Structure formats: structure tokens, C-alpha cells
């Protein structure tokens, strides 16, 4: 696939909802060109909305934010990650970031909690300190 993409995890969604500068820069600029993908795993969205219910309406208002549904294959991968001790809120982001047919080099995860992903060898785009849930 041409273009570029990132995965927003639950902490990135919460940061966007709280006015993070980097998160808002990424999201607004993604709307200005075709081929820029801001993927939002459904589980990450659910985890973020549980903490900040109004967030769902904001994400729904941003057309370049593409929600990744949790289908059969991803549900299996997420289940294995949870069984291995990963935080369930991050598991679908880990799965979405791994190399795939569509993105053979994988995708970076935008997050305020990089430590969640380091054991999984995922590329990261850390949000600024002071983001909700951040360092």
C-alpha cells in the first residue's frame, strides 16, 4: 500500500481528547492528503471511551480516523497477547502494528505509554510527557 499510517492506542485517543499538541497535529494533517491513515483499533477506542465517554463523538467527527474492527483473526491474536500478560487495552494496537500484507513493515503506535509496547518490538511515536496516562 502507498501512503503512510499510524496506530492510535487508547492513551493517544485520550491525549487527543485532552488537547495534546502532537496528537492534534497528526490528526489534522492526516485529513489534508489521501493515503494518510490514522488507525484506531476498536478495543483501544472502547478503553478510551470508558475513561472519557465524550471521546466517541469526537472520533466519529474525524473522518480520517479509521476504526479497525476486532474480527476473528485479530480476536485470536489479542486473546493470546492477554494470556501472555499484555494489557488488554493495548493488545489490538500491538496486533494492528505488526507487519501485515497491507503494511509489510508494520506501523508505528502513537502512545503516551511506550513501555506497554517495548516488549513486543513495535515502532513507537511517543506523545509528549504530561499526556493523560503518560510518563
Amino acid at each position, binding site marked *: 500500500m*502507498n*501512503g*503512510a*499510517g*499510524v496506530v492510535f492506542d487508547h492513551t493517544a485517543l485520550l491525549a*487527543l*481528547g*485532552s*488537547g*495534546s*499538541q502532537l496528537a*492534534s*497535529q*497528526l*490528526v*489534522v*494533517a*492526516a*485529513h*489534508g*492528503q*489521501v*493515503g*494518510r491513515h490514522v488507525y484506531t483499533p476498536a478495543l483501544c477506542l472502547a478503553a478510551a471511551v470508558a475513561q472519557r465517554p465524550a471521546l466517541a463523538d*469526537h472520533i466519529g*467527527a*474525524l*473522518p*480520517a480516523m479509521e476504526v479497525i474492527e476486532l474480527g476473528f483473526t485479530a480476536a485470536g491474536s489479542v486473546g493470546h497477547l492477554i494470556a501472555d500478560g499484555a494489557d488488554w487495552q493495548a493488545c489490538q494496537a500491538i496486533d494492528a502494528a505488526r507487519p501485515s500484507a497491507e503494511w*509489510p*513493515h508494520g506501523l*508505528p503506535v502513537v502512545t503516551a505509554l511506550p513501555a506497554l509496547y517495548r516488549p513486543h518490538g513495535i515502532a513507537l511515536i511517543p506523545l509528549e510527557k504530561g499526556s493523560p496516562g503518560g510518563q
Partner: protein
Amino acid sequence: MADTTIKVDSTVRDRLAVLAAQRGCTIRDLVTALAEATLTREELAARQAAVAAYVTEHLRPEFSTADITAGEQFWQELEADQRHERKRLAG
């Protein structure tokens, strides 16, 4: 609305035929859907302006044009990195 003809390479026509068959539609339907679903540069600019206004109103009141420039630079660097990775993996 009057019909018109578009000339394309025969390999492109063949590919369009396969894509249309797999979607259960005609090449005409496929090309129409592509034209309707793909935003023009002006439509993209309008979409970005609307999203910037939304973010300013609801999420980050201090959002500015400098933030759009910074975001644009971020995406350009990411596109270059991911293009490089695709080439590297393609060998």
C-alpha cells in the same frame, strides 16, 4: 447526463474488468464509484480546514496554522520512512 469514452491501456482495462467482476459490478460502476469516493485537492483542503476548526472548537483551543505545518512535516517524514521500508522489503 451524456456518456463519454475514456481510453486506457488494455492491461488497465483488463484489471478494471477483474476488479469489477470481483465486486459484482460493471467497469462503469467501478469508475463512477472511484470518481465519487476520491477527494480532489480542493475537497481535501476543505476537509482539513473543517477538521482544524473542529479541533480548535472542541479539543485544543490554541491549535494554529503552525500546528498544521508541523503535522504536515511529520507526515512527510513518515511517508519517506515507510516508502524506504517498502523498497527495502521489496528487495
